């Protein structure tokens, strides 16, 4: 069985704004294996965010092919893509993106609401989920994986930035996805909280989960096993990290 999770071939994304076309991603090809921790690194405007949006099925490429788990994703419908986002991908955003005035519990629950067996509303799974025991267990497990169990009944806006990001990671984990896609997860955090987040990501990777980290900081990127350097929409380097940084408490993330 192939160990390749993601394979992109000659991927391009062109934005047409008025007369000038911008090649945000320009003829990119690479592979990512299961269980890898990859950092996509580049300065702002380099196209790394666009690449992440395509990899996360939030956007479609203009040309090129994207194989996910060996399947060509070109002809997937909007709802099929939603299904993949829900079950296979856990997003961690720079601005956390938690629903305000909503509890930690409900925020983590959110992807579960959209994780339904297709067209069988009356399936046993759905009927049992009404009683919520299984669901609650799942949510508590995800929260304890990020050390946020004690805040389960807090409202999201009562949390600090670092706590918010950890809740966001719990939300990303809830459907047991193949990949965690983290877009500048430490960008809005102080260094201490940033270290904690990186520590959690490394822990998840050591448990076998694939992680794609988008960042513009070399230091943060060095927590990954492999760095894809991107510039002007092209990959300029694909290198293994020789000395992987271990995120530890007490360390300061610059």
């Amino acid at each position, binding site marked *: 069985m192939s160990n390749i999770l993601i394979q992109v071939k000659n991927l391009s994304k062109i934005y047409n704004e008025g007369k000038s076309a911008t090649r945000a991603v320009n003829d990119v090809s690479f592979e990512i294996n299961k269980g890898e921790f990859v950092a996509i690194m580049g300065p702002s405007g380099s196209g790394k*965010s666009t690449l992440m*949006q395509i990899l*996360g099925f*939030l*956007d479609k490429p203009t040309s090129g092919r994207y194989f996910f788990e060996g399947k060509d994703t070109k002809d997937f419908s*909007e*709802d099929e893509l*939603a*299904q993949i*986002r*829900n*079950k296979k991908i856990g*997003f961690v*955003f*720079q*601005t956390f*993106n938690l*629903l305000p*005035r*909503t509890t930690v519990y409900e925020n983590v629950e*959110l*992807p579960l*609401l*959209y*994780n*339904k067996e297709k067209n069988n*509303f009356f399936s046993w799974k*759905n009927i049992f*989920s*009404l009683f919520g025991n299984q669901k609650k267990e799942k949510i508590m497990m995800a929260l304890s994986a990020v050390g946020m169990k004690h805040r389960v009944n807090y409202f999201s806006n009562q949390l600090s930035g670092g706590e918010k990001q950890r809740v966001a990671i719990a*939300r990303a984990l809830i*459907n047991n996805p193949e990949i965690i896609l983290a*877009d500048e997860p430490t960008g809005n955090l102080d260094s201490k909280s940033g270290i904690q987040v990186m520590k959690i990501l490394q822990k998840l990777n050591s448990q076998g989960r694939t992680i794609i980290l988008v960042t513009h900081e070399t230091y943060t990127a060095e927590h990954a096993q492999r760095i894809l350097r991107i510039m002007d929409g092209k990959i300029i380097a694909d290198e293994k990290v020789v000395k992987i940084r271990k995120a530890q408490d007490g360390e300061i993330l610059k």
Partner: protein
Amino acid sequence: MRFWNPIKISYKNLMTTKNRSFLTILGIIIGVSSVIIIFSIGLSAQKLVLDQVEGIGSNLIAITPGASEESGPPASVMGISVTTLTYDDLRAIKQKRNVPEIEYAAGYVLGTASVLWKNNNLNTSFSGVTADYIQVENAEIENGRFFTKEEERNLSRVVVLGNKIARDLFNNTNPLNKKVEIKGQKYTIIGVFKERGSLGFGVSNQDNSVFIPLFTAQKLIMGINHLGFIRAKVVSTNLIESGKNNIFKILRERHNIDNPANDDFSVRDLASAITVLENITDALRYFMLSVGSISLLVGGVGVMNIMLIAVNQRIWEIGLRKALGAKIADIFSQFILETLTVVWLGGILGIILGILVSFLISVIAGILGYEWKFLISFWSIIVAVAISVIIGILFGLYPAYKASRISPMEALRYE
């Protein structure tokens, strides 16, 4: 699960914008309550009118001279004097073996004359009637008595006064046994009717009229031999049709008519008048209902407006939900359900308000002296709820569609 969650989400969103939600709901509240109020008032007014008409007697049959022009008015209404109906016709109708359904029947002639007492002179209408009048019309005597069968026939110069006439002519004096002058002749007052109030609908106002025996009116005042019309009272309402048939039979026989097309009289009953009234008031009610529904429609447009604003304000949230795996249908149903929640809530409050106001109107109408019954149509509630649900879905469609088309990329738009 599938339905509960969107409702929970809607509730939360409604609560976070309480004022706006209330204003949104207000349109629906006003719409729904106006439908219920209009329906209730319509129903009560209809009942009031029909009760009054039935008060005259739904078991009355009217026989007028002249052919019946389809369902149009009889010729006599047009001021054409038709002389085909006579006292002997009345007597024939009253015969039990001819028309067994009839309990009482009275002949009428109507005219106007001035009535004089001392220096008081009143121009008023007079009715020459037979002794059965009092039973046929359910009239009641306040003072004295009505005239007898003998007085009906022997040209007695007696008169019974309507209540208002008595008051206008005599003020506080007791009119009994006084003599009034009508067309130069003195009549003895033998009785005064109780006040009856206006009945409207073409029924002569008893309070403003004086009543003299039929023959006296025919011979001494008018110089005629025919009757203006006959009113007959059947034993019970369900006998009206067979009574009418028997009247047709005996009158055709007496007038030597073989072909019904040549009838020189017409027979009507109040039941058909009531049906006509019902049709008219129903039509009015539905007209008002449609006006009320327009206000619901306006309320619906308001809801759509607010929902569109809500969609615009929550682009980020919708984008996030989609990024986390919400399908088009998930977002669509969430917004439809949100609209429905708003409208449904408005509907419930509108029903309560509508019933309350209708009740208040009935209380006020009662104080003003109308016999106003508080009636709420079960159907008006069903209609109001159905319309508001339809409006919720209809006016929720577009905002929900717009919401469902929002790109998951919006979740990444950093502010």
